[in-house]
């Protein structure tokens, strides 16, 4: 265990200036991440941020840590590979609502089922930012966009409900403009051993400027919300979507734990030993 070095949020700033638009919510998520990392005393050399493609996908470039900017939609399986290859690393996956729930949506329930030890922060702006404003899976019904000029015919995906149904072991919602609370959620997510999902509302000022509506509308889960009650958490998830807080927690053995157990139970072998199993003890004909 290396000695813990006292770190400051700005230690996690990289030399690259974010290219996000003025007012973009992703700045807030980035700042909360810096702070969470600092407060947890993470080591940049031991931390990996994995992302897919999108405005939010540029995130790793702005953090002083290891980063991996994958292709669109593949942050979760990539992060699983990083974590399972080296469980000592702190692995955070980040991305957009399109990246995570459209093209990458098929990976989500499996990351949750496996309980892979990573924290997944989705910068949810209910739009495709990078491709200039088409609706995403979390866009509202009837929402107008370049790809839904007459209003979105689809109904939005409820990310909290989806995560609870998938039995993710930590499920929370935050917002880019609620920096302190978001910092705490990210910290709690990282501290949870298992798959932590944080849906962070993060307004897109250029293509779906919900900043004011969201700022005006957010509220928090009541104090007495029992986050260990899955059915109750689901019921909450069906209420006002602007409710922030920790919806659901279900601590159970993580993927790393399970594979560690397999490794511990296994008797070491060599490849020569393996080949012995194929050996022909040849009796040459007389």
């Amino acid at each position, binding site marked *: 265990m290396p000695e813990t070095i006292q770190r400051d949020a700005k230690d996690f700033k990289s030399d690259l200036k974010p290219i996000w638009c003025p007012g973009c919510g992703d700045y807030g998520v980035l700042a909360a991440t810096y702070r969470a990392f600092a407060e947890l005393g993470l080591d940049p050399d031991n931390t990996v941020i994995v992302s897919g493609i999108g405005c939010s996908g540029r995130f790793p470039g702005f953090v002083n840590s290891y980063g991996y900017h994958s292709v669109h939609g593949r942050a979760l399986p990539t992060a699983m*590979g990083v974590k399972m290859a080296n469980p*000592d690393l702190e692995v955070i996956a980040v991305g957009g609502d399109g990246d995570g729930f459209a093209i990458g949506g098929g990976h989500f329930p499996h990351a949750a089922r496996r309980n892979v030890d990573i924290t997944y922060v989705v910068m949810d702006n209910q739009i495709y930012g990078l491709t200039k404003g088409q609706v995403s899976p979390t866009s509202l019904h009837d929402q107008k966009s370049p790809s839904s000029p007459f209003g979105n015919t689809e109904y939005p995906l409820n990310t909290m409900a989806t995560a609870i149904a998938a039995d993710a072991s930590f499920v929370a919602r935050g917002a880019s403009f609620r920096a302190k609370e978001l910092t705490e959620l990210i910290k709690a997510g990282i501290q949870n051993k298992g798959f932590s999902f944080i849906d962070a509302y993060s307004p897109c000022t250029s293509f779906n400027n919900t900043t004011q509506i969201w700022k005006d509308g957010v509220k928090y889960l009541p104090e007495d919300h029992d986050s260990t009650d899955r059915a109750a958490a689901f019921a909450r998830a069906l209420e006002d979507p602007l409710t922030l807080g920790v919806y659901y927690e279900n601590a159970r053995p993580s993927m790393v734990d399970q594979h560690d157990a397999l490794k511990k139970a296994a008797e*070491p072998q060599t490849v020569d030993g393996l080949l012995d199993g*194929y050996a*022909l003890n*040849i009796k040459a004909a007389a």
Partner: protein
Amino acid sequence: MALPDITLQLAGESGEGVISGGDILTSGAGRAGYWALTFRTYPAEIKGGPCMFQVRIGAERIKSIGNQTDLLICFNQEGFELQHATVGDEGIVIADAESCKVSEEFAGRSFEVAFSQIAEEVSGSRRGKNMVVVGTVCGLLDIDTAEIEQLILQRYAHKGDVGEANIASLKAGEKNARENLPNVCNVDKPGPAERERILLSGNQAIVAGALHAGLNYFAGYPITPASDILESLAARISRFGGVAIQTEDEISAMASVLGAGYAGAKAMTATSGPGLSLMSELIGLGGTAEIPSVIIDAMRAGPSTGMPTKTEQSDLNQAAYGSHGEAPRVVIAPTTVDDCLQCAVDAFNIAETYQTPVILLSDQSLSHRLETVDRPDLSRIEVEDRLTVADPGSQNGSPASAFPRYKLEPSGISPMPIPGTPGAYVSTGIEHDEQGHPSYTAEVHQAMQDKRFKKLDPLAANARVTTTGPEKATIGILGWGSTEGAAVEAAEILTAQGVSAATFYPRVLAPLPVERIKAWAAGMDAIVVPEVNYTGQFARMVRADCEIPLIQFNQITGHPFTARQIADFITANVKTAAGAAV
């Protein structure tokens, strides 16, 4: 007269023990000092349906499946119907007396044995039918059954009397054959073995090679004929300190393999065509972000879902070119079971050394054939590791998270920091400068494509090639993958007919060893490229880069080539410069 080797087939219904009988027979023959190579067909049904096990055994190493059946054993009538056409002019048919009638054309060379009845008599159950068959073969070929008895005891150790019952059936079959079918067929006796031998399949050899190379992360999704690689690793990789994960699909598998490779693991996936197609985008990322990875593609007959249990060499295009843009990768193809082990190690060595995806193209016939091979001396198979960073500070000392991961070194190979050690940087598939920062200038793009492609040049010049025959020959056979054995035998057939012939099998297909192919080709009057595919994918690659004339021999029967097919094609179709048909 004893044959130098013999090709025999067991044909019956799935569930009758055709395959387990064939397996035990092959093992037993292997232990008795014979060389063997198997081939089988699968029923279309999930369970039940006709199946066939073929094994060619002989006193010398077996190179291919055999040109015709020398000895066909029919468990039932359907077995006879489906397989008798493969029997050679002098081939023998042995049929189950109860259930199978052999047609007139085999008069004088067909015999009946009451397999089930014999089993029932000696063991009280007809279940031992397949062991009577195995015993019959041992009796016919004079193979000592002692080893097979051992195998039976091992296999059925936990099944009460089944082992003993099976041994009784085996011996009864042998006795009957020795008594009632003497001198029906003979095969040369093997000499003393010079080295230890093992009997395994291509997939098993790949697993062994990968573990030898240091595999510690595997992710895959089941698919025929690659599933047993996943299964075999799931059963044993924890004994080597690694993990094997069954992912939700091949995209997830490949993404996670790249994540693991980035994190410093030796990571691999295994799939077949449909999975390889799904991995296209991520293979491009691996080439661009320069992350080591190994992808095993056990090819099956395509296109689309195609014929999953049949063999074909039709994924070469997808392996070499599959991915938009131009994403470098290495494609290698083993030719035999022992070469599967070596190529698996090569794949990791190349992936690590060159920081690139490596696709290993095996095929259904190679994946699942059992072959006796010399036991490899693992201590002589070298393992290479990637260039990491000794002292990143000295090269970096620069702003936060800006290690020059993609430094333009003359070799094209830049040191790769491993998360957990100093040297933080962002790995990315966006075009990037030396620091991994996005950059879209013409200069950066050109320099990085140069880096990514040219770093592979040494492979074309240095990678392993096997060649047989003279440097100057009438016929050159140029090929790849599992056809090598048949090609070498075809060259032997031609040579025996007075036509000089040579073979050339490169292991690395992309980047193509252009100069070496040209140099070899210069000595050949005519070059034939046999491929188990429709369009001649390798021939087209060679023509595109080497600009030499080639004659394609393409066949898509779902089965491997026989040597005779290749030789006959050449005799029938190839006219050399002199104008005469070969």
